[in-house]
């Protein structure tokens, strides 16, 4: 028994030591990019491109660590202390919350061009091949026999864009009548059978589990789903109007100052605005800001009338409290006795 105890102890110790050894060769510098769900593929390619560029320019090896999840969850991790050098999230409000916690400057959005959003996107519909329910615009989503898949706007950044796009459409349609717009989104959400917490969860539900007739999705997510899972299964439908989604990026001041990584973090985010970065964004179906790159990929991105959150809803902070706060418009949709 003693022998056995000893060998067990040795085994455990051995395992502990083996695991304690660093997984990868030590890099000169590391960055942690805390991002949201649909950017996984983009940042795999972009991180490679940036590492090469940084190596060529400074001789330093940079390793970028990634964390992905729902935008709100990711911002929560940063607030609670995950040491993210940069955040690349789904909407400005989530970064505002990080700034409010004191981890970065409150005016972060002015630090980079285009509201600190190096690429944009919009919300489109993904439908089953041949569009059996004949869904062509937002108005079709409230038909009684249409099942709509969207994530939960209270936890998913993408879902908030979905919600606001639908609301904005209804507002236009009703000539600015708030009650009518509210009624429209209420009817729309009554057609939602599953409310996942993140954009990826919804895509899985729609694509893999075969639930629903239409998925409200980021444009890039919809294209990716079609690309990954076969163009013979899904069609993309572009509505008459949609929202201009600006996923912003920022540096977490507290972290880069402590770790001394500001220069490389700055270079990392700026690389997103460079022609290479913009090219990669476009290839992953994010709409580039650079005119030249946008021209080159013009056939990739369908023309659609886009409105911004500032012109329709007076910015994120207003929209957040009004629509997604406690007791806000979204909560009222799910209030009992609706």
């Amino acid at each position, binding site marked *: *028994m*003693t022998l056995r105890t000893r060998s067990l102890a040795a085994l*455990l110790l051995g*395992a*502990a030591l*083996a*695991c*304690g050894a660093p*997984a*990868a060769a030590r890099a000169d510098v590391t960055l*942690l990019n805390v991002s949201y*769900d649909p950017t*996984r593929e983009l940042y795999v390619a972009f991180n490679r491109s940036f590492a090469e560029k940084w190596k060529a320019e400074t001789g330093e090896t940079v390793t970028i*660590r*990634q*964390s*992905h*999840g729902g935008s709100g969850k990711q911002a929560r*991790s940063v*607030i*609670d*202390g*995950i*040491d993210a050098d940069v955040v690349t999230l789904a909407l400005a409000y989530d970064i505002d919350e990080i700034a409010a*916690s004191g*981890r970065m400057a409150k005016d972060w959005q002015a630090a980079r061009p285009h509201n600190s959003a190096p690429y944009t996107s919009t919300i489109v519909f993904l439908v089953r091949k041949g569009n059996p329910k004949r869904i062509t615009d937002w108005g079709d989503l409230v038909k009684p026999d249409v099942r709509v898949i969207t994530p939960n706007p209270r936890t998913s950044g993408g879902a908030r864009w979905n919600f606001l796009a639908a609301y904005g459409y209804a507002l236009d349609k009703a000539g600015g009548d708030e009650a009518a717009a509210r009624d429209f989104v209420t009817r729309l959400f009554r057609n939602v059978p599953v409310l996942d917490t*993140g954009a*990826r*969860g919804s*895509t*899985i539900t729609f*694509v*893999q589990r075969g639930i629903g007739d239409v998925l409200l999705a980021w444009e890039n997510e919809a294209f990716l*789903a079609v690309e*990954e*899972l076969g163009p013979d299964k899904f069609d993309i439908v572009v509505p008459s109007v949609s929202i201009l989604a600006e996923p912003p990026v920022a540096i977490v001041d507290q972290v880069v100052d*402590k770790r001394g990584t500001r220069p490389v973090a700055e270079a990392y985010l700026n690389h997103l605005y460079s022609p290479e970065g913009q090219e990669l964004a476009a290839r992953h179906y994010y709409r580039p800001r650079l005119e030249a790159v946008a021209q080159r990929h013009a056939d990739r991105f369908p023309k659609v009338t886009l409105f911004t959150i500032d012109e329709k809803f007076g910015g994120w902070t207003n929209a957040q409290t009004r629509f997604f706060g406690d007791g806000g418009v979204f909560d009222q949709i799910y209030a009992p006795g609706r």
Partner: protein
Amino acid sequence: MAIDAFAPDTAAAAPRVALSEPRVVRLVLIAVALGFLVLFLVVPLVVVFSEALAGGVATYLASLTEPDALAAIRLTLLTAAIAVPLNLVFGVAAAWCIARFEFVGKSVLTTLIDLPFSVSPVISGLVYVLLFGLHGWLGPWLQAHDVKIIFAVPGIVLATIFVTFPFVARELIPLMQEQGSEEEEAAIVLGASGWQTFRRVTLPKIKWGLLYGVLLCNARAMGEFGAVSVVSGHIRGETNTMPLHVEILYNEYNMVAAFAVASLLALLALVTLVAKALLEWRYADELAATRRH
């Protein structure tokens, strides 16, 4: 208990037969039980392996040897290698004082040890965020001294220890209570030291129960999802345990890889069950009579 004594006489004719159910009833009951178990246990298990192997053996092995998967496996092993021994030491200490001594507050202590069993795993993670998060009780101090607990390995280990806390203790307490303390008392009276008594008298009596508890503790430690998910931060290749890696792969449309890693965990579960069954068959009388978890 009122039983109608003058009811039909068939029973009196063949009392032995009446102690069992008619053949049809027996078959139906066996069918119901097996059907239920097949539906809820066997089919899900089969699905895991069939989905994992859907892309062929080569794809299966490739998804398991990819760097992020290896990092997740390493982290899971490390977490279990820390959490299980700690809970083992705790379990022995707790069982020693609860099963060998009478003291005020013993039942309260026993109840508190059981508490992590009934606390939702999400809450187990949340409490550590409240304690060690940047805005938690100890957060600012940890930040100032550059100590990382949550979103790093220590937080994952802590959350795992919390959820697997009672396993060894729960196994040992009833076992040691049943065995009584006469032999240990005799050893002490005959002049053995406390440590000698424990090693020579107690340990041989409880070793199989101990192993049994460790087995269950280990299975849960390697498979915990909810608690770890709250404190992990999901940094690829760094703070993802195997169950979290399964979720990430699942969210990347990579079903085959997700189920491949899941199948590894399922394999671990099966090995645990086999080891457990062997222990139960061979050492049934040395394990506590009332086994529950």
